[in-house]
Structure formats: C-alpha cells, structure tokens
C-alpha cells in the first residue's frame, strides 16, 4: 500500500497570549484508500493538526509528506496548487459561496486548476452531483438549499479535482442524525468503491467507530 499522507515529528506552538505547546511530536501515516478519523476532546489540538495537514497552516516544526513528497517549506503559491489538486476539503460549516449557483460552486476548484476544458468540468461536476443525488439542485443558488444538501455540495466540490485525500473538519457536526448518516455513507462509499483516502476530525463517536481507523488525541499527542 502506498502512503498518501505522512506526518513526521510535528510540533506546534501557539505564541499568543502565552507560549503554549499545542501539538507534541506527532507522527503518523495514512495509506491509500484508508478511511481514518481523529477523535479527541475539545482543545486537544485535533483541528490544529488538520489545518497543518491541509497545508493551510505553515507555522509548525517537523515534516509533512504528501504522496511521498515533502511539502513543508514550499512557497504559498505551490501550497495553493497542492491544495487545489490533491486535497479536498469538507468543513463543519458548509462554506459555499452563497452568491454562486450550486454547479458553479462545485466547478470552481476545477476552473482554478484549469487542466480540463470548461465543458469537461461542467460534465464532471454534474456527474459528481448525480452520484450524490443532488443534480436537481445544480442551478439553484447555494444560499437557497438546506444544510444537508449544502454539505453534499461541499463534498462534490471536494471531489471535483479527483484529490489524493479528502479532509473533513467535523463534517457532520452541524447536521441531524439522518443527514449525518447520509454523509457518512457517502464517505464510506467513496472509500470502498473508489479507494479514496479520507481523514475526518469528529466529535461523533458513532461516526468514528464506523471508520477503518480511529486516531485518538489527548493534550496534543496521539495516544492510540
């Protein structure tokens, strides 16, 4: 099995208001096709870790590898490109661009990547919406659809560039149990059928238990 994401001895300090050691010497690997979740109490540093893994936070010590390539120390432009191409993101709050249509939201990262023609991108986006059973929403404004639907649109957007890994920051945290189940099933399906790697930070124990692997954190360290 190849390694999609690897963290080596990652340390992070918050400097304000006082110096605080948030992440303590974190090392772990995620294999291709693995569906992992990170559990832990509030303030244990799991979200902080996720933002480092996502390359958005660059203020840390240690090394981060994506597809066996070191990304630590790359320029911001390069990191933007890596996020665009290799990482799909799903947040707790849906974070769609509310003034754009659902379809445009899904297409946006692919347009930015600009590896395919506009027609192909639109075709792919509709395909993604179809697999998530929301193609009927394509022309609606992102602000006009429900929370569960928004999260599915966000997943479709995360998938549009065929990323190496999908990261989720409490993707079900804001959803009722029906929609949570729905989102979990989508993730599970992606992992099983398409061999996609997933890394999800969650509070939800039921959600975590059903994933392949649970990484438990406490006080800035991985304990299991």
């Amino acid at each position, binding site marked *: 099995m190849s390694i999609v994401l690897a963290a080596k001895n990652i340390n992070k300090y918050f400097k304000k208001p006082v110096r605080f050691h948030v992440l303590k010497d974190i090392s772990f690997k995620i294999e291709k096709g693995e569906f992992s979740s990170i559990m832990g109490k509030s303030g244990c540093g799991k*979200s902080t870790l996720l*933002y480092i893994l*996502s390359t*958005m*936070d660059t203020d840390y010590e240690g090394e981060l590898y994506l597809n066996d390539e070191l990304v630590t120390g790359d320029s*911001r*432009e390069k990191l*933007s*490109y890596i*996020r*665009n*191409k290799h990482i799909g*993101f799903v*947040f*707790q*709050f849906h*974070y*769609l*661009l*509310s*003034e*754009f249509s659902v379809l445009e939201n899904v297409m*946006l*990262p692919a*347009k*930015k*990547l*600009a590896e395919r023609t506009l027609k192909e991108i639109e075709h792919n986006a509709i395909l993604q919406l179809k697999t998530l059973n929301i193609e009927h929403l394509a022309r609606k404004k992102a602000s006009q659809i429900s929370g569960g639907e928004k999260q599915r649109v966000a997943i479709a*957007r995360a998938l549009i560039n065929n990323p190496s890994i999908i990261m989720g*920051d409490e993707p079900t945290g804001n959803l009722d149990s029906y929609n949570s189940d729905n989102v979990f099933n989508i993730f599970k399906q992606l992992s099983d059928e398409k061999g996609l790697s997933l890394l999800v930070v969650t509070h939800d124990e039921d959600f975590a238990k059903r994933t392949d692997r649970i990484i438990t954190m406490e006080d800035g360290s991985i304990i299991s």
Partner: protein
Amino acid sequence: MPNWSVILNIAKTHLLTKIKQTVTAALGVTFGIGAYITLVSFMTGLNGMLDDLILNQTPHIHIYNEIEPSKNQPIDLYDEFKNSFNVVHSIKPKLSQRKIHNAFPIIDYLKEDENVRGAIPQIKTQIFYIAGSIELGGNLTGIYPLEEAKLFNFKDYIIKGSPEALQNANNGILLGSGIAKKMSLDIGDRIQISTIKGHIFPLRIVGIYQSGIADLDAIQSFVNLKTVQRILGEAENYATDINVKLHDIDIAFDMSKKIEKQFHVKAVDINTANAQFETGTTIRNLITYAVSITLLIVAGFGIYNILNMLIYEKMNDIAILKATGFSGKDVQLIFMSQAIIIGIAGGILGLLIGFIFTSIISTIPFATDALPTIETYPINFNVWFYVIGIVFAMISTFFAGYLPSQKAKKIDPVQIIRGQ
C-alpha cells in the same frame, strides 16, 4: 499564472450581487470624472476664448517709430563735460518722422525669415468724421484687409460686410460700430472724413467693425493701405507700423530685440505688451486641475471604503477560496479587478456625462459685445481631456483598490474557519 476568466467571473458575481454598493462606488467616479470633463472643457474653452481675444488681434511683434527724447543730448558732445554729472531740465522729444524708413524692404526681409508667419504694414493716422457741422475725432488705419484677416482673425471683428468688400472698394471704409451708431450710418451709406491738415474725403461704408472695446469702436475705422496713402498724400512706400506674426510666440522677445538693433526702430513683443494675460491663464488652469483632482480623490476614498466593507463581508468566501486552492494573489486580483471595473465603468459613464453636459453648455446662448463672434458658451472639446479623464479614473481606483485587496491577500483562512 492567474486564471483570469475565473477571477473575473468571481469579481463580476460580487459586483452584481452587491449592485447598490457597486453603483454607489461607480457613481462617485462618474461624478468626479464628469465634473472634471465639464470643468476642464469649459475652463479651457473660456481660456482659449480670452487668449484669442488678445492673441488673435495682437501682433507678436509690433514695429513702429516711437516719439521719444533723443538719448544723446547736445551736452554729451562737449568733451569738457565728459567727466561731469550733467542734469538737463525740460527735455523735449525729438522730432522724428512717423514713417518707418524702408518699411517695405524690412517687410520683405522679415518674410524671408523662417520663424515669421507673416508681416504686414499698417498706416495709423488721426482723422475727423464729419457729420454736418460736427467733427468727431477718430483713428483711421490703413491695412491690407485680406492679409489682416488671414493673420489676425480680422474677419471675426467685422460684424457687417467682409474683408473682401474692403479690399475691392477703392474708397471703401470699415466703420467702427460706435461711430456708425452715433452718426446713424450703415453699410452702403457715405461718410466724409477730414485729415488733420483739413483735406476732406468722401468714403463709402462697406462694413462695420466691432472689437468689443467700446472706447475703441467709437473712434476706430479701417481703409485700404493705398486709400490712406492717397488721403495723406504720401508715397506708396509710406507705412507707420509693421505687425509681425511668428510661428512660435516664445521667441517674440528675442526677435523684437534683434529687430530693434538691426533697423533702429521700436519693436515691442506681445509678452511685454500683455504680461498680465499669461498669469491669468496659468492660474485658471491651476484652479481647474486642483478642483478636478480633489473630486477624483474623494471618489477614490468612496471606492476604498466600499471595497473595505466588501472584504469584511466576504471573509468566509475568501477563506473558502484559499482553502480550495486559490492563492493570496488570486484573491487580491479578484478585488483589484472589482476596483478597476468600477473605475472603468464609472469613468466611461463620467466621460459620457461630461460630454453631454458640455454639449448642453455649448448650446447655451452667451452674447457679449466684447466678442462679436461668440454666440454660445465656449467649450473646448479636446480628446486629450477624455484620455486623461479615463486614465485618472483607472489610476485612482487602482490605488483605492490596492490597499483593501492587499488586506484580502493576507487574510489567514485558518483563522476565519476556526473563528466560526
């Protein structure tokens, strides 16, 4: 390499969904540019008119014989007083002839000079207009009407008749409008004039002249050069004044000094004669530009303000764009292009409004005795004002957009996403 179609598409959507703010910001620019175009066209139009008033009818160099005391008094010839301090009381001006010696060879010489656009002779003399037993004092100037029209816009000041009519009429006179009114005369009528020596000549009125200066129009009339020579009983080479027009007005001073030295005549250049007029032009231009720039800076602050607010509202959008792979530079370009679009749209509309405004102003009647040729307010429709206007709109919106967009570029997506 920024992906322009995506960036512009996002910018467009932002602008269209906040159409009210966009329009407000654009109207700020529109107002600034519109006011600039209106002001500058109107002011330079007026300036041009006032300049023409002086420049067109004033020769760049005026050559004549001045009646003045001679510089060398008899006492200077005595060797015995050479080293003394001499005081001479009640000096009288020297009797010299009004005629310019060799006037026509001088004119031919000047016409050869490549800096000279034209040089024409005039004869100025005092006469009386005779109405029954009343004699009205006046000035009569002998001219070449067609050349005067060509070089000094003489035609603009002929309110009735034409230079050609004067040229063709042997005994024609172009009567000042003031005298014509006083004596109830009009085109086609006859008038008698008397020279200082008492010779009386009948002349036929072929036109009415009005300079706009009432005192002048009450005395001044024009006839052909040859007619004056005949009236005065002078030879055909008699001329009292030479008016020179140059291609470049800036060399007038040096040229006049040269002529004075070379021909022993008095030569006055236009700048010396009308020093005050250039000061007026400069200050009017200064005021125009100061007001316009102030307006545009105010518009710039409006754009700055609105973009700043927009960026605060779009914090989440910026974070999500950055999380999904848009770089800080892309985000900056999104907001910069919004500013530039506002600038261009507002600017073009401003140019249009400025054009409409000035077009309306240029049809408003503006009748003044001072300028018989002017019927409406003078407007200078110069393409360069429009070029400067749109460039200035883009520059000012660029700077107004730069600072807020710089802020958007630096926004840390992690902070926004965590802050929720």
